[in-house]
């Protein structure tokens, strides 16, 4: 466009003529509108930047709050789990539910194992499902005690024979524990401790026969591995615990000098 005063060439955004200095009235409206747009743009830009800043902070605060919540849940559960009583109670409840779910299979297996004199099988089945807590299996009470005593004696003899050392246990200590299981058989297994008489249903029929056979099996294990005579084997059930422990350890040392010397 041309300046209306001097005729010089003007650009659209020239507020004044660069040649004569007079106001460019033709472009005034354009320039005013442009200034308005620029002002609106600047204001909007500031608003957007402020909002973005707020959203960035808010978003991160939300993420932090969520992470703190998740951490609190994990820490809470971990601390609950660290308490042994909670763990034990949780596992007992879980075991109880598992036993409830499989009770028919458990009962059938128990009957089969009792018939086949699977002492270790019954002991482990009992331990796995905490069967002592079940009212519907109370009749197996003496069977469970016998199987557990068998496993205890079996385990100690195996550890003596294999030389497995756990937590500083010596063969003398293990002989003492074997003597404990044997001399307390009548008290714990036959049930004197709980007032169980010979007429008790827990010692009737197959249950009684199982307990009797289990006692023979325990006696055989101890007799063979400690080389006891028949008389000593018959007498050991009513001996004093310390007396039997000393006898077992003395036999162990005399028959297995190389092994006992290494302890």
């Amino acid at each position, binding site marked *: 466009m041309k300046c209306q005063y001097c005729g010089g060439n003007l650009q659209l955004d020239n507020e004044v003529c660069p040649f004569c200095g007079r106001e460019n009235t033709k472009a005034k409206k354009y320039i005013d509108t442009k200034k308005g747009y*620029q002002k609106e*743009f*600047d204001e909007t*830009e500031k608003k957007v930047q402020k909002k973005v*800043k707020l959203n*960035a*902070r808010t978003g*991160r*605060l939300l*993420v*932090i709050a969520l*992470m*703190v919540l*998740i*951490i609190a849940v*994990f*820490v809470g*559960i*971990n601390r609950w*789990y660290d308490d042994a009583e909670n763990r034990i109670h*949780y*596992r007992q409840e*879980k*075991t109880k539910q*598992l036993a409830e779910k499989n009770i028919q299979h458990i009962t059938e297996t128990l009957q089969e194992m009792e018939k086949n004199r699977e002492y*270790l*099988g019954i002991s*482990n*089945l009992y*331990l*796995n499902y905490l069967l002592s807590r079940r009212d519907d299996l109370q009749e197996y009470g003496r069977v469970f005690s016998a199987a557990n005593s068998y*496993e205890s004696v*079996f*385990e100690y*003899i*195996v*550890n003596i*024979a*294999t*030389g*497995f050392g*756990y937590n500083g246990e010596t063969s003398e200590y293990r002989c003492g524990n074997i003597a404990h299981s044997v001399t307390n058989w009548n008290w714990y297994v036959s049930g004197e401790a709980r007032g169980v008489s010979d007429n008790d249903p827990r010692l009737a029929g197959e249950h009684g026969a199982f307990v009797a056979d289990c006692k023979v*099996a325990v006696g*055989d*294990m101890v*007799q*063979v*591995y400690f*080389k006891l005579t028949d008389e000593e084997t018959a007498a050991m059930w009513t001996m004093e615990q310390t007396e039997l422990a000393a006898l077992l350890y003395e036999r162990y040392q005399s*028959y*297995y000098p190389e092994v006992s010397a290494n302890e």
Partner: protein
Amino acid sequence: MSKTKKKTDPVVVLLDLVIIALIFVMLIVGIEFYFNFSYEKRGGTFMQEAKEMAFDLERNNYASLIQGAYMNKINGKTDTAQYHELAEYTEAAFLYKVYEGKGKAAETAAQKEIMDRARQNMGSLTIFADRVDGLIRDFGKK
């Protein structure tokens, strides 16, 4: 239109650092939670994995191996089958000595049969069966 240089918000930077720190904390507590959960998820707590049974064998802890095998079988765990065979062999070897010592021929033969069958099915664990022979069956023999 003017272009303004974008300024870094110091509060956002601080919050980012907090988030990074919390990620590490989450990893630590999450890993502990995972181990606790996976242990409990294993069902009966007496079951044993193959590596635990292998560790028992390294320490000559055959009693634990036998109990682990029983627990695994009760709970239907089958991926440690060869260890179960070795456990059966060990128990049978133990009882073989008892029955042989008591002169019970039928029971002795039954345990021998179990030992022979188990030895065939235990794969590379036969070296431990040989060790069992030395430890248990020949225990006390000079």
